[in-house]
């Protein structure tokens, strides 16, 4: 249909990742008691960022026919 789906996926997940990473950096460590002490916002945010950027990179390097 002309719109490469990897672009909206990449944009959305990059944006979500940035929100999680920023919040992970500034949030009170006490809230991580429930996630067994891990700062999951920061950690998982980084994984989302890798995924989002990879999607964008893939659509940029090899455009859909």
């Amino acid at each position, binding site marked *: *249909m*002309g*719109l490469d*789906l990897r672009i*909206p*996926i990449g*944009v*959305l*997940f990059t*944006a*979500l990742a940035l*929100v*999680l990473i920023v*919040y*992970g950096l500034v*949030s009170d460590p006490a*809230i*991580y008691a*429930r*996630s*067994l002490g*891990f700062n*999951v*916002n920061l950690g*998982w*945010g980084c*994984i*989302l960022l890798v*995924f989002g950027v990879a999607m964008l990179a893939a659509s940029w390097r090899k455009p*859909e026919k």
Partner: protein
Amino acid sequence: MRLTIVDGLIIGLYVLAVIAIGVVLRRRTKTSEDFFLSGRSIPAWVAGLAFMSANMGAQEVVGMAASGAKYGLATSHFYWVGAIPAMVFLGLFMMPLYYGSQARSVPEYLKLRFDEKTRALNAATFAFMTIISSGISMYAMGLLLNLLLGWPFELSIWLWAGVVLVYVFMGGLTSSIYNEVLQFFLIVFGFAPVVILGLVDIGGWAGLVANLAEVSQQRGYAADAFTTVWRHSGSAASNPLGVGWFSITMGLGFVLSFGYWCTDFLLVQRAMAAHSLSAARQAPIIAAIPKLLFPALVILPGMIAIGLTHRTGGLSFPLKPDGSLNYDLAMPMMLARYLPTGLLGLGITALMASFMSGMAGNVTAFNAVWTYDLYQAHIKPNATDGHYLQVGRIATVVGVLLSIAAAYIAAKFNNIMDLLQLVFAFVNAPLFATFLLGMFWKRATGHGAFAGLLSGTIAAALHHGLTIAQHAVPGVKGGWLLIIHTYPSEMAQDFSTAIVAWTTCFVMTVLVSLATTPRPKEQLRGLVYSLTKREHEGVATWYLNPTLLAPLVLGCALVLNLLFW
């Protein structure tokens, strides 16, 4: 559970993305084929992921976790003997006929292969079923958001139905498919942290097995009944599902799963939208790959949840007003237990996304069937393409409104999964016999198909009316005519209903076909497997070749069954 601004921001970003996709696609949706079939232009991986996500509405995400808590690992039968073989069969043998015949919908294939009345029967029942499913999905969402976040039931229903309406209205099937793929990734990324944290907390797989052994023994089963799939299926009474191996393989594995995955237009529509025959064949098989692993994301959290309730200082499972465990809250409870503000927003977004795609999938299938198979076939044939596009858009609005009405009706039933199984058993179970005979037996006739379908559905209703599950009250649960047999569980009863319906339809179709005149062979080219030339079109990527991928996927399913035997 309270959401903060950060969680709200995450939900907001998702809604923004969904609407933006609709807006961009609106300008590219010019013909009815764009609207109903994405102009047959979707790449295989997108069609495949959408194929998989389209069924992940309430029944999958909330229902599978609920079943995981209720029945344990045996719930994986819905994947490892249920979905996977059926999806592979669809890709290998049925897609060449669906796609190759240029039918625009599953009922339209029936029209091409058989006749108009068979199509009308199928189209009408299917349209009804999509509305029911969509309503159930919406009801589950309204209830859940009310319980979790205190949002008023009515508000969430109308608000999220509104969002779905906006993006489907604008971009049609493409919009729905794109959002289903988005939802697929949201579910993976939203639920994976819960599973990881839950497993770490309970002491890994070994810890889970130890905890569930207590649960299992408390309920009167063997210690490993909750953490194995086949070992206790020798008799229905010795496993939590209450179903024996024959019912599991024949009822669920063969009749129900093939009936659902191979003939449900909601799913097949995604593969029909693919850009080429080879992509259409790859789509269901590509979808089967994540499907193999999804029990870890949707069933495991339910198992962990019930395991944790039996640990000191663990978790108290929410109760229903009558004092029984409210299994449907297993997944949301796990989200609330492990995810801090931030990731919690992502988890809730994943839940909402699944509800919305469930609804959108139904609405897009409904509007296509309504427009092509009911409106164009019976009310106004030979109108302009623009007219049908317009009708499709109106049907989208009407479909959403009907779903909302269905949601209010669904509020009367409590176990979503059992109700869905029941509806599928009546309508879908006989259907697969019709397709099997239609696609692989050139002698099958239209009269035969129609008689088979009708008698199959009636047989299903009769069987349901004459039998009941232990401890069930006669009524919607069966036994509304006379009780001549009692099953150990509702699921066992449902699987048997499906087997009876399928067999009746199969036998009736064969008998009536033999008594009526067959269609000449020339008219059946492209519609019957033996009369269709196999095109050897080049597959761009060798590892996506269905003949290589299919045995690989089936092999993996076998390994998983053996691993957790």
